[in-house]
């Protein structure tokens, strides 16, 4: 097995773990944690392809991963702000209990 395949398999495993967390947990913060794991798995794929790709000196995959880290940070800030506001409004972060959009 090539090293690249090992990295890709690890990334696929982390992505699936994050997806399972996002789909099975009730707490909105845990769903955000699952999404963060999925984003990180994608970053690992980008870096692995950059390392083993034909032109690593072009830095394309690495730059994509760095920008993706920045976007993920923005996403986490806004997502957690929304969770805190929802908790203030509904006094719960249970996603199963959130079944209406009206205030």
């Amino acid at each position: 097995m090539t090293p690249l395949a090992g990295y890709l398999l690890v990334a696929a495993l982390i992505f699936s773990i994050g997806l399972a967390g996002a789909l099975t947990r009730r707490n909105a913060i845990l769903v955000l944690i699952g999404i963060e794991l999925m984003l990180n798995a994608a970053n690992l794929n980008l870096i692995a392809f950059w390392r083993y790709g034909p032109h690593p000196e072009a830095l394309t995959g690495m730059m994509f991963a760095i920008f993706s880290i920045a976007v993920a940070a923005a996403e986490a800030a806004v997502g957690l702000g929304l969770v805190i506001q929802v908790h203030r409004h509904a006094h719960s972060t249970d996603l199963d209990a959130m079944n209406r959009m009206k205030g």
Partner: protein
Amino acid sequence: MSYAFLFISALTVAGGLAAVALKNTVHCALALTVAFAGLALLFLDLGAQFAGFAQILVYIGAVAILVVFAILLTRGSETPKDGVYSKHWPAGLVIAAAVFAVLGWSILQSISKLPQAAQTPTVTVAQIGQALMTRYVLPLELIAILLTAALIGAVIVAMHENGRHENDRHEKEEVK
């Protein structure tokens, strides 16, 4: 396939599993930190020093702390009485397993076409800075705008609306 890679990936996967499976949400956040650290080590193992240290700074330094703050502010560490898993958790687990099966199958199918081990590329931070200021200057500016907008948006979304809070308090006092 070196021992370092096997050890780091086992640590990362264990951290990720604990982060989504533990009952106490504070423990989940700590396990998430372990998973982030493992991913940073994998980046370093791949020769991407800058991305690895950016991962440590942004994820362990900021996102994990933010998650802990959110958990404590929403009293999320108390285990709800009807369980921590959603009503439809078997369906979610089946979907995740199916996604992993498809991804793993396609990786194993394409193993012969994947590029073989190349020599480690040497990338200095100066090169990255030069690339950010020349070829990637437009994405850099867009990211700056996005981060500013996200910062202001997050503060506005989470900000206390003073008037309404006062009303809520009056209502509660009237109920009492």
